[in-house]
């Protein structure tokens, strides 16, 4: 089953029809999606700016990460859930949209960057001026800003 097949199947589901029929559902989901995604990006920015040595410099990086990341993960859960439902409202159009597909790819790369951080960079957090955490922070910030940009471009290119 290709992604296109899945999109066609989903477009005929009761969920999809209910979402397109309701006047309230889509704006409500969009609002929740914006709240969730801005919390993801905002909280990640706090961590990334610390990794880059640009903010919260007096604070221990590991401690900051431990305090902020639960917020990031909770917000990401809501962003993903609302995102899935938004997708379900118009699967065929979204699955053919360059910026939607690009956003999914960028999310995957951002996830990979996060894994790489935990495997390679985390142990160097205590080292002043270490390169790995800075690269991770810069990559993360760039990726997430691009995710938001691509996300906004979807609505203008459907």
């Amino acid at each position: 089953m290709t992604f296109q097949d899945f999109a066609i199947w989903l477009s005929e589901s009761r969920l999809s029809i209910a979402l397109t029929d309701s006047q309230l559902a889509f704006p409500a989901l969009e609002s929740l999606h914006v709240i969730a995604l801005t919390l993801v990006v905002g909280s990640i920015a706090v961590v990334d700016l610390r990794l880059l040595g640009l903010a919260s410099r007096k604070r221990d990086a590991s401690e900051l990460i431990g305090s902020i990341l639960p917020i990031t993960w909770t917000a990401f859960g809501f962003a993903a859930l609302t995102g899935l439902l938004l997708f379900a409202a118009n699967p065929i159009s979204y699955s053919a949209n360059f910026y939607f597909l690009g956003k999914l790819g960028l999310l995957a790369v951002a996830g990979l960057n996060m894994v790489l951080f935990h495997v390679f960079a985390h142990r160097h957090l205590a080292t002043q001026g270490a390169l790995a955490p800075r690269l991770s922070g810069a990559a993360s910030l760039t990726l997430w800003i691009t995710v938001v940009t691509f996300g906004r471009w979807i609505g203008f290119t459907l």
Partner: protein
Amino acid sequence: MITTALLHFTQWLGGTALSAAVAGHFWVVPALQTVHILSVAVVLVGVLLINLRVVGLVERGQTVDAVLDRFLAPTAIAVLILAVTGLLLIAGEPTRALFRTVFWIKLALILAAGLLTWSHRPALTRAGGDGAAISLGRKGIALAALLLWLAVIVAGRWIAYVDAWPGAPA
């Protein structure tokens, strides 16, 4: 509510070079909106951490003063960027937001949320800034502030979905 003044203002604004610059290129509005959303991210994480710290739910290892010190200024700067991008977006489509009630509700919500968030510093300096000394009333204000900020985002999204005032130009 469509006053002659507002109508004349939007007609004038729509004829400016600024308006033409924003409306004239496909990418300008989405780019402005992207900067707008990224600024929302700065504000939202800031007011979340500030207000939930006042309540005592997050960042308990930090003093309230430390959280205010770290996040109030960036939040205020981000609000300024939101105002600038917002004004540019209005310049590009003068009759869109200004002739919809939900936009004016959004502005009122921003004022209320901003004032409540700003009030934590003077209120808590008097109390000593210690977590245990924060009154239930102050925590209620913090929760209200956060909910108002979330309502700002909802009101903003709703601009695209509500009808303009009767008689409003297209």
